[in-house]
C-alpha cells in the first residue's frame, strides 16, 4: 500500500515538475518579445538554418512588427498534413508558407483566411502567379516568389553534334536536334516522369504547350504530348530511366555531361554553374513554336484562421514585410526565386542578366490549380502521371493511356 501511494506521489510530483518548467519557459519567451508576444511561422525550407539569410530576414521582420518570430520548418511533403492536423487541433501557426498547389486544398478545408479578412495587399502581384492562390473569387495568400521549368542545354554536346541552339524553336526542331545528338554518340534529353506530383509538374509544359486542357486529358493535343515523350524513349533520345527519375536524379544525369538537354528548374542554377561545362537555358518550346506555359513552382505566404482574430493585424505586418515590393528583392534573392511582381523582376534582371530567360518563363507560366480547377487539380494530376507512365513504359499506347487517365480523372472529380 505504502509503495503505491509513493508511486502516485512520484507521478504527481513529476507532473508538477513538468508543468512548472513549461510555465517558466513560456513566461520567459513572452518577456523576451517585449510585450508583443510570439508569432509562429511555418515554412518548408529546412535547408536554411539559424545562421541563414532567410532566418535573419524573418527575425528582422519580427522585430519590425514588435514581436518575436518562432520559426518551424518542415519538409515540403510533410507540411500539408502538419497544417491540416494543426488546424484540426486548433493550433495553426500565425503565418504559413506553403507550396502553391496546396493553397486551394487548405482553403477548401477552411484553414486559411482570405485577403478580405487579413487585409493583405496583392494588387502588385502578377495575375498568372496569384491565380494559384485563388478560388471562388477569393485570394488566400501572397506568392513569396516563383520558379518554373525550362530546358538547360550543354553547349559542348550540341557543338559536337552540329546543332545550332537557335534552330530549336518547336517540337519538330527539338526532336531533330535530339536525333543529331544521338547520331553523334551522345545522349539526347533527360527529364522526370516519376509516378508522383513531380512527374505531372515536368509533363505539364509539354501538355499545355500542345494546347491541351487539363479538363480533357485525352484530347488529340494531350495525346500528342505523351506521344512526343514516348517516341523519344522508343528512339533512344531519352533514357528509359526517366520513368523513375526524380528531378534531382534527372539533374545528376545531365550533370554527368553526356546529355544535350535537361528539363529542370530555376533552383538548379547554382548547380549548373558548378557542373564544369558550358551550359545555356531556353524556355520549353510549344508544339508549334513559342514558349510553352510551364507550371509555376514556389510558395504562398498565408495567414491561417485563428480563434483570436486580433492576431491578424500583426501577422499581416509580418507577411507584408516579407512580400512588399521593397523587401521582395531581398526575399527572392535569399530563396533564389523569381519575384512575383514586374517591378522587382526588372530589378532582378538588372542585377543578374542570367535570370532574363527565367523571368520570361515565369511570365508565360501558369498555376497548376489555376483555371478555377482548385482542389480538382490533384484528382486530375494523379491519373495524368499514371497515364504518362503507362505510355512511357509501353504498357499502353499514348491514346489508350490518356483515355484511361481521362475516365479515371472524370470519375474522381465528380
Amino acid at each position, binding site marked *: *500500500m505504502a*509503495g*503505491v501511494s509513493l*508511486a502516485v506521489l512520484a507521478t504527481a510530483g513529476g507532473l508538477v515538475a513538468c508543468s512548472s518548467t513549461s510555465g517558466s519557459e513560456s513566461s520567459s519567451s513572452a518577456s523576451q518579445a517585449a510585450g508583443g508576444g510570439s508569432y509562429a511561422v511555418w515554412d518548408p525550407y529546412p535547408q536554411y538554418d539559424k545562421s541563414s539569410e532567410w532566418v535573419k530576414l524573418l527575425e528582422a521582420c519580427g522585430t519590425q512588427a514588435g514581436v518575436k518570430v518562432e520559426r518551424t520548418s518542415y519538409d515540403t511533403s510533410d507540411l*500539408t*498534413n502538419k497544417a*491540416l492536423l494543426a*488546424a*484540426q487541433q486548433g493550433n495553426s501557426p500565425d503565418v504559413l508558407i506553403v507550396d502553391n*498547389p*496546396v493553397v486551394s*486544398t*487548405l482553403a*477548401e*478545408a*477552411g*484553414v486559411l483566411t482570405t485577403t478580405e479578412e487579413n487585409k493583405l495587399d496583392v494588387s502588385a502581384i502578377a495575375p498568372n502567379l496569384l491565380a494559384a492562390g485563388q478560388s471562388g473569387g477569393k485570394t488566400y495568400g501572397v506568392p513569396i516568389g516563383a520558379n518554373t521549368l525550362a530546358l538547360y542545354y550543354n553547349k559542348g554536346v550540341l557543338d559536337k553534334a552540329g546543332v545550332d541552339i537557335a534552330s530549336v524553336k518547336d517540337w519538330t526542331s527539338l526532336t531533330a536536334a535530339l536525333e543529331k545528338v544521338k547520331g553523334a554518340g551522345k545522349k539526347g534529353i533527360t527529364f522526370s516522369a*516519376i*509516378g*508522383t*506530383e513531380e512527374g505531372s509538374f515536368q509533363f505539364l509544359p509539354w501538355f499545355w504547350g500542345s494546347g491541351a486542357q487539363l479538363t480533357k486529358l485525352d484530347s488529340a493535343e494531350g495525346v500528342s504530348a505523351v506521344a512526343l515523350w514516348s517516341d523519344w524513349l522508343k528512339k533512344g533520345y531519352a*533514357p*528509359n*530511366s526517366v*520513368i*523513375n527519375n526524380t528531378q534531382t536524379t534527372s539533374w545528376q*544525369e545531365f550533370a554527368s555531361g553526356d546529355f544535350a538537354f535537361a528539363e529542370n528548374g530555376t533552383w538548379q542554377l547554382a548547380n549548373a554553374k558548378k557542373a564544369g561545362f558550358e551550359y545555356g537555358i531556353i524556355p520549353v518550346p510549344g508544339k508549334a513554336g513559342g514558349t510553352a506555359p510551364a507550371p509555376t513552382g514556389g510558395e504562398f505566404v498565408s495567414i491561417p484562421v485563428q480563434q483570436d482574430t486580433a492576431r491578424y493585424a500583426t501577422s499581416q505586418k509580418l507577411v507584408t514585410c516579407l512580400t512588399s515590393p521593397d523587401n521582395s528583392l531581398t526575399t527572392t534573392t535569399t530563396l533564389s526565386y523569381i519575384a512575383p511582381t514586374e517591378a522587382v523582376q526588372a530589378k532582378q534582371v538588372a542585377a543578374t542578366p542570367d535570370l532574363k530567360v527565367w523571368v520570361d518563363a515565369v511570365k508565360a507560366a501558369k498555376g497548376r490549380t489555376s483555371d478555377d480547377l482548385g*482542389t480538382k*487539380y*490533384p*484528382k486530375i*494530376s*494523379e491519373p495524368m502521371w*499514371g*497515364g504518362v*507512365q*503507362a505510355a*512511357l*513504359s*509501353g*504498357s*499502353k499506347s499514348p491514346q489508350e*493511356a490518356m483515355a484511361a487517365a481521362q475516365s*479515371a480523372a472524370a470519375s474522381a472529380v465528380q
Partner: protein
Amino acid sequence: MAARTRSGQWAAWAFLAPVAVYLLVFYAYPLYRNVELSLRNYTVRSFVQGHAPFTGFANYIKIFGDATFGPALWHTVVFTVVSLAFQFGIGLALAVFFSRNFRLSATLRALFLVPWLLPLIVSASTWSWMLNSDSGVINVVLGAFGIDPVNWLTSPDWSLWSVTIANIWIGIPFNLVVLYSGLQGISPAIYEAAALDGAGGWQRFWKVTFPLLRPVSAITLLLGLVYTLKVFDLIWIMTKGGPSGSSTTFATWSYRLGFGNLVPSFGPGAAVGNLLIVMALIFGLIYIRVQRRQAHT
C-alpha cells in the same frame, strides 16, 4: 484479513495499470481510430472541422470496385509468397550450412547479417542504383555476358520482380538467425542415432531436422508474413509502386491514398490499411490453431 486482500488487489491493479494504459493508448485507440476513419467520409474540410458523415462500408465498396484493387491484391500475394518462399528456403539452407561450425563460420554468419542491419533507406536506394536501366551495375554485368539490358524498375513486366528480389535479400538474415538458433536446439544425439541407423545426409535433413524444426519454422514464417505484407518503404523508394501501378501492393496503395496526393483521401486509405490488418490477423489465427493442435497430439 479481508482488508489485506483488498489492498493486495489494489496493488495488483496498480501493477497492471501501466501495461493496460500502454496497450490502450498505443494499440487499442489507434486501431479504433483507423476503423472509424474507414467508416466515415472524410474530406479535407471535415477532417479539420469535424462532423465527417458516417457512411458505413462505402469506403470499402469504393476500394473493392477500384481498378487498382485486383492488381494490388495480386501483387501483394505474389510479393509475399515469393519473398517468403525464397527467404525461408535460402535462410534454412544457410542455417544448416553454418550449423556445422567450421572455421570462420561465425565471421561469415555475421557478414550475412549486414542486410538486416542496414537502414532500409540505404539498402533500397542502393538496390535502385544497381538496378538503374542505363547506369546500373547489374545491366553492365549482364552486358558483359552479352545479355540485353533489362529495364528492372521502369518496365511493368519487371518492377514487381525487382522489388521482390531486393526484399528477399533483406529477409534472408532474419530467417537465417532464427532457424540457426532453432537448429541449436536439436540434440546431436538424435542425429547420431539416425546416422547409426544408416540415414544419409538427405534423410537426416528430411526425417530429423525438418520435423523437429517445425515449431520454429512456423513462427519464422508467420513473422515473415506479417513483416512482408506491410513492406512499404522498400517499394516506395525503389519504384513508388510504378510504373503505372505495376508494383503497387496494398501497403503502397494505402499510403498513396492517404498521403501521396495533394488532396488526401483518408477514408479509403484507412480501409486498405484495415484489409492488411485483417489479412495478417487471419494468418495469426491459423498459426495459433495449428500450434494448439500440435500441443494436443
